[in-house]
C-alpha cells in the first residue's frame, strides 16, 4: 500500500473556493455571477486573502489562479511549513496552458505579456512566492485529464527526489482564446485551479492516502467533503 498521502487540498472555480479544512466558500452574489460568466478580471487577490501578493496584478490568469490555489493550501495550515523548501517540488498540469496570453501577445506584443506565454511560468510565480527550490515539471495534458501530475509528484516522493510536492492543475482560457482551437476541441472548465500537497505518511490527522484519481477531481472532492463536514 502506498505511503504517499494528500496532506492538504484546495480548489477554486466558478462555484467558489476553499480548502480541505475550511470547505467550499461560494463567491458572493455579484462576483459569483460574473465569475460563472467567465469574467475573471473581476476576481481580486483581496477577495480571498489578507496578505498581499505584490506581483499578482502583473500576472496572467493561469499564474494568478495557480498562485491562488497554492495560497489556499497555505491558508490550510496555521503555519505554512512544508518539510523543506529546498526539497519541495512543484508539478503543474494544464491542457490549454498559456493560450490566453498567447492571444494577448499576438494582439499586442509586449515584453510583460511575453513572459507569460510559457505554461511553466506559473511554476516560477509559485516558487518565487513560496521559495520552493525542489524539482519542477510542467505537463500539458489531454482534455483536462490531470492524473500525470499526481503520479509524478508521488514518484518523486517514492524515489527520494523530493520530500513534499505541490501538484497544481489549472486552466484559464478566455472565450477569445478558446476560439483559436479547432471546433471539435472545446475545453471544459474554462477556468479552475486545484492544488494538492503530497507528502509521506506521518500519522497526522486529516491525511488521506492517495489512491488514484485526477488532480482537480481529488482537490474538488476533498474541498466539497470538508464543506459537508
Amino acid at each position, binding site marked *: 500500500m502506498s505511503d504517499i498521502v494528500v496532506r492538504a487540498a484546495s480548489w477554486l472555480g466558478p462555484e467558489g473556493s476553499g480548502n480541505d479544512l475550511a470547505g467550499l466558500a461560494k463567491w458572493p452574489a455579484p462576483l459569483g455571477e460574473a465569475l460563472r460568466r467567465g469574467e475573471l478580471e473581476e476576481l481580486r487577490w483581496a477577495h480571498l486573502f489578507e496578505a498581499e501578493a505584490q506581483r499578482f496584478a502583473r500576472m496572467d490568469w493561469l499564474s494568478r489562479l495557480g498562485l491562488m490555489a497554492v495560497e489556499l493550501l497555505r491558508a490550510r495550515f496555521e503555519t505554512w511549513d512544508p518539510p523543506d*523548501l*529546498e526539497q519541495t517540488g*512543484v508539478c503543474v498540469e494544464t*491542457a*490549454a*496552458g498559456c*493560450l490566453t496570453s*498567447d*492571444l494577448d*501577445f*499576438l494582439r499586442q*506584443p*509586449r*515584453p510583460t505579456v*511575453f*513572459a507569460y*506565454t*510559457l*505554461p*511553466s*511560468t506559473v*511554476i*516560477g*510565480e509559485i*516558487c*518565487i512566492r*513560496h*521559495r*520552493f*527550490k*525542489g*524539482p*519542477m*515539471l*510542467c*505537463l*500539458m*495534458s*489531454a482534455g483536462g485529464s490531470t492524473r*500525470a501530475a499526481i503520479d509524478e509528484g508521488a*514518484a518523486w516522493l517514492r*524515489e*527520494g*527526489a523530493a520530500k513534499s510536492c505541490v501538484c497544481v492543475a489549472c486552466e484559464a482560457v478566455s472565450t477569445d482564446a478558446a476560439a*483559436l*482551437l*479547432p471546433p471539435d*476541441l472545446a475545453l471544459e472548465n474554462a477556468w479552475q485551479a486545484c492544488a494538492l500537497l503530497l507528502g509521506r505518511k506521518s500519522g497526522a490527522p486529516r491525511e488521506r492516502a492517495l489512491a488514484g484519481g485526477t488532480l482537480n477531481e481529488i482537490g474538488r472532492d476533498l474541498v466539497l467533503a470538508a464543506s459537508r463536514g
Partner: protein
Amino acid sequence: MGTALATAVSQPRAAVAGCGAISAAGAGLDPLALALRDNSSALRARATLAGQRYQTTIAGWVPEETIAQLAARDPEHADARAFLMADAALREAARNLPIVSPGRRALVLSATKADILAMERVFGRQPCSKAAHRHILPRLLADDLAAAHQARGPVQCVSAACVSGLLALQQGASFIERGLADVVLVAGVDLVSHFVLAGFSSLKALDAEGCRPFDSRRTGLSLGEGAGAVALVRRDLLPSPAWTIAGWGSSNDANHLTGPSRDGSGLVLAITRAFQRAAVATGEIDYVNAHGTGTLYNDNMESLALRTVFGENVPPCSSSKGILGHTLGAAGVLETILCLLAAHSGTLPGTPRLLERDPVAPQTMLLRPQPAIRLRCMLKINSGFGGANAALVLRQDQV
C-alpha cells in the same frame, strides 16, 4: 561537493538506441557531425524578413529546401511544420530499435510553443490545415506523433521553457526505470516565427550580430528551430557499450521570472541532484555541455555555478548555441545529441562564434574542438525562464 553520496536508483537503466535531427545544419545527424567537426555555425539572417522590427533575423533557420523535402514526403502534414520536423527526427532515431509491443513503447514530447506558425495563421485568418490546427495545443502534437510511431504506452508532453528538452529526456528515462515502458521515443521541437522573434526582441534578448556564448563582447542569444529525437530503450535490450541516462536533476531559482539567479545556486542544486542520482563524483565528468545562450546574465550565472560545483577543476566545457541557435523546447534534446555525436567521434566540441573568452568563463571553455583523452561521462545543463534549471548525466557503460 567533491563526491556524490546518494545511492543510484535501481535498474533498469535507460540507454540511447538512436538519435535523429532536423536542424539549421540540415536533415539528419551527418550535417550536425560535420558542424561539430568544423566548429561551424548554421546561423544566418533571413532576407525575407528584412525590414521587420526585430532586433535581428539572424537565427538557426531550418533550410527551406529541407522543409520542402519533408512536406513532399508527407503531403497530409505539409503545413504542419512542427509535426514534419519531429516526425522526421523520430524516424531517424527509431531505425534500429528492438521490437517491443506497442503498449511498451512510450513517447515524450518537449515543446514550448508547438506549432506556433499554425497559431499565427489561425489568428491571422489564413488557411491552416486541420492537422496543423490541432498542434496549437502541444499535447495534441504529442498524441499525433505517438500515433504515427506506434507508441501506445504512456505519452507525455513537457512544456517547461528552455529546460523542456532535458526534462523530457528525464521523463523518458523515468518511464523505463519505473517499468512503464521498454522503449521511449523522446522528441523536442520548436519553430522560429514572428511570435518568437517579436517576443525575444521585445525583451531585447537577441544579439544583433548573432550569439557569442561566453565571449566578453556577447550581447544576447540567437534563436533556432528544429527537432531532435532520442530513442531510449531498456539497457538490457542493447549490446555494450551504450550511453545511458545515468542521472538527472531539476530545480527552481525561486528568484526571478525572466532572469537567472545571480549566484547560480539554483543550477548548482540541479547539477548536484543529477550527480546524486547518477552516483557520480565531480572528478568523473569528462565534459560539460553548457546552456551558454550568449546573454550576459546566463553565461555569468552558469560560469559561477560550474565553479561552485567543480572548484578549480572545471572539466572541458563548451556551448553549442553558436551552431544551431537556441532551439528552445528542442534545445535539451538537440544538445544531448551533439554530446553523443562528439563522444562517437572522440572529440570534445568547441564553442562556435566564441572569439574572446570572458574572464568569468571557466578557463577550460573550449573555443575549438579537441581530441578527447577520455569521454565516458558527460554533463548537459540548461536553464530557462521561470527560474528553471535542469541537468542530465550521460554515462557510457564500461565495456
